[in-house]
């Protein structure tokens, strides 16, 4: 049973300098065609109406870049197909500024109950450097607007380790973000990805990232301030008041299934992870032709499933529940990973208690190093097969 849905809206009024997601400059005609193609994809993939789901996430791009009419079309497509009123968490991503009262009302009318706001940094000069269109005052206006409509479940996204940013500078951003007293915050360290403006600048030596030492300092500042404000860290980059953890993102970390609709979207269905075609014309054509605009399918066998269970699950501070693992796979994680777990414990990166294994604070800093331990060799599973016999 697939309980989560991700829908990608690849349009933006402005392209940020660091963004490597599937995105295109907004064009009204193209957006209209896109929504039609998306509708076809959803209808081919999911039969029936008002299907029950637990979480829906509309991401981008910038979903709010759509016109009022287009947004309405998108939301009614979703509420026809899925039972949005009984959906536990229905999130839309939004940029401060490209938002008005009418759009906020629309979200409310169609059952959206959570907004993820891309704030990034409280510094107008840096926002400009990032290629962001909004300014600090837009954040205040947009949060007010949302709250007026009763959309109080807001998540505020930040990016740190920005070019020329210091730890002190980031602390000011964190404090200003916390002054909104929102139930959820995310903070991601900037990744320089290929095919972005930042990447080109970086290659030419024109972009100076803070040193690793500074980045660690920022992360410590983030954790300290969140804790003081009563927000609990539940994943590497995510903090929430109790009960406000993002259920949709937890779908990913819990290694549960989800649909991925739209250009470039990723989905996870039993036995396979899929990725959709990214270029818009190709996506639209394929989605209109047969409703299956899939670019790539990665088979997820038992080996991959186990690996992902671990390297995704350990991103959560609560880690992996040993009983859950046992009941999901029919054997204990110890059969495969006792050596790795011993090593990681010795390094001080991992703790094993009665119910769980989870990373320590130090272990989280070296998360990628720790996750690597859980990649299996092809013959590792033979041992399992033998024991089970």
């Amino acid at each position, binding site marked *: 049973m697939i309980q989560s849905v991700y829908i990608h809206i690849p349009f933006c009024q402005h392209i940020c300098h660091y963004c490597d997601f599937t995105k295109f400059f907004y064009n009204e005609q193209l957006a209209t065609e896109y929504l039609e193609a998306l509708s076809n994809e959803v209808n081919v993939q999911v039969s029936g109406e008002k299907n029950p789901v637990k979480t829906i996430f509309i991401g981008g791009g910038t979903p709010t870049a759509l016109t009022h009419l287009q947004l309405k079309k998108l939301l009614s497509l979703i509420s026809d197909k899925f039972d949005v009123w009984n959906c536990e968490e229905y999130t839309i991503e939004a940029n401060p500024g490209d938002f008005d009262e009418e759009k906020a009302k629309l979200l409310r009318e169609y059952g959206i109950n959570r907004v993820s706001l891309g704030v990034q940094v409280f510094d107008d000069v840096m926002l400009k450097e990032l290629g962001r269109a909004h300014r600090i005052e837009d954040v205040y206006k947009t949060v007010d607007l949302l709250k007026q409509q009763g959309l109080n479940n807001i998540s505020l996204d930040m990016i740190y380790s920005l070019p020329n940013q210091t730890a002190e500078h980031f602390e000011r951003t964190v404090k200003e973000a916390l002054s909104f007293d929102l139930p959820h915050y995310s903070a991601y360290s900037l990744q320089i990805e290929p095919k972005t403006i930042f990447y080109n600048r970086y290659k030419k030596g024109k972009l100076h990232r803070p040193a*690793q030492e500074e980045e660690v300092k920022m992360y410590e500042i983030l954790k300290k301030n969140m804790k003081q404000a009563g927000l609990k860290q539940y994943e*590497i980059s995510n903090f929430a008041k109790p009960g406000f953890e993002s259920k949709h993102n937890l779908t*990913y970390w819990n290694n549960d299934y989800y649909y991925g609709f739209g250009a470039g979207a990723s989905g*996870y269905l039993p036995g396979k992870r899929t990725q959709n075609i990214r270029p818009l014309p190709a996506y639209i054509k394929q989605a209109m032709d047969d409703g299956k605009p899939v670019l790539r399918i990665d088979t997820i066998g038992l080996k*991959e499933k186990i690996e992902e269970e671990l*390297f995704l699950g350990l991103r959560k501070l609560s880690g992996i529940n040993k009983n859950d693992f046992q009941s999901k796979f029919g054997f204990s994680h110890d059969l495969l990973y006792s050596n790795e777990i011993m090593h990681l414990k010795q390094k001080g990166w991992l703790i094993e208690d009665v119910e769980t294994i989870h990373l320590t604070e130090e272990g989280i*800093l070296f998360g990628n190093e720790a996750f690597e331990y859980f990649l299996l060799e092809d013959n590792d599973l033979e041992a399992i097969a033998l024991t089970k016999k």
Partner: protein
Amino acid sequence: MARKQENVRNFSIIAHIDHGKSTLADRILENTQTVTKREMKEQLLDAMDLERERGITIKLNAVQLHYKSKSGEDYTFHLIDTPGHVDFTYEVSRSLAACEGAILVVDAAQGIEAQTLANVYLALDNDLEIIPVINKIDLPSADPERVKKELEEVIGINPDDVILASAKANIGIEDILERITEAVPPPVGNPDEPLKALIFDSLYDSYRGVIAYVCIKEGSVKVGDRIKMMANGKEFEVNEVGVFTPKPLPLKELNVGDVGYITASIKNVGDTSVGDTITLANNPAVEPLPGYRRLNPMVYCGLYPVDSNKYNDLREALERLELNDSALQYEAETSQALGFGFRCGFLGLLHMEIIQERIEREFKIDLITTAPSVIYEVEQTDGEAIIIDNPSMMPDPQKIQEVREPFVKATIMVPNEYVGAVMEIAQKKRGQFIDMEYLDDIRVNVIYHIPLSEIVYDFFDQLKSNTKGYASFDYELLGYRPSKLVKMDILLNAETIDALSFIVHRDFAYERGKQIVEKLKELIPRQQFEVPIQAAIGNKIVARSTIKAMRKNVLAKCYGGDISRKRKLLEKQKEGKKRMKMVGSVEVPQEAFMAVLKMDDE
């Protein structure tokens, strides 16, 4: 097919990399219907994957073609391919010795390049008839008139003789084929004289033994003949002769002027030394053909498997490669840091890179290559003289009476506007100015005596980039001369890493030490702990830097549920570690062992 000697034409193609040699060769094969369009693989002569990727030719190839001229005569052509890089000058001279003519291909936009010029002079040395072709005339940037003028000024070619062509667009190919029949003389040998077959290459085939590539200069040879190698007197019975079309095509007999192959159950490639003459055992020639100068390896480096369990695989790979590459030498050696491996000798840096790549690709062995070195002679204080081909074996300074290193006489031909640039490079490379002579109004020969060790690094690359590619460069060994050389050791985490030691002139030692510790700091990734890097001469530390401890490695980003991407990242990280070598407690990537080569980048 009956065949008249006067209708045989043997030629090769001389061109700079990228000027269209392979495309032209393909087009010639196509237009003579040697291969049909359907069989045509792009750039047929460059068969090895590596050759095709790098756009260069390494091993020689010889193909027989048939051409009916406009006058209705039937001709037999042999097209012999030549490599284009300075490391393989030796191979070029081999292939040119088998020809009477050469097609000189020059890019219509770029004009004549230095490397081509060197090969043109080789061709002229061999008395070859040159057929000048300006290629790529269909390019928008083409300027054939300028290039014609250049050819006239630089090589003295009559502009009226130049053929304008585009191999890509199939323009001018017929003209070239006609010109070959008119201008290139037929081979001159006498079919009734005793056999003289020049070996210009050889190749080992596991089923047929050694295949000798030969050009028949006198007489003839057929299956069943008993042949004799004139160099060592060994005799064999011929079991196959033939030509390449480009597939091997067995024939009854090879005659004067033929370029083809001989197999005779020869087990050892060493028995068919390139440049040797094959004759008949019962009717031997009196004198062998003039051979080639045999080149000894110039550059030595250590090759080690990243995974120590692959040592035997590496030995087998080298054995296999050696069969087809007589210039490659190797012997086993041991490094404290890297374990068991081999010290290998190469003709030059490109040769080294190609062998390294072939081992990694064809034999799937990840390698660590230590920085290349030349052979040093050391006279110790106890009077004993030793030979050093591995820098880590250099004795301590107090035990050294004198160190001698090989010097070469470097002749650099360059347009006069670049003389300053050439001198600057030569000076930096410890060159000693000898002479400068004007060849004409523009061209100058600059002569330097330079240590070979400076040349094997990046001399040629620097020369090219600082003269816009106009400099051509040749060198010959002068012999050994005393130099103030010292061994520089590198310590990681206070441990000397023998594989990183190198030999450097005392006057440059401090600067080099500083450069290399900085370079290593860049190349070695952060570890879980801090790693000091030191450069030392004897017990004296001359430079130091520190790789800071890794503080963080975690991907914060969510990637919109794209878990496959996260997985790839982790897999890549794991793969990357496999390609690193654990040296003491430090994980060192392959590139770090070549750091000494990359110091001049900045």
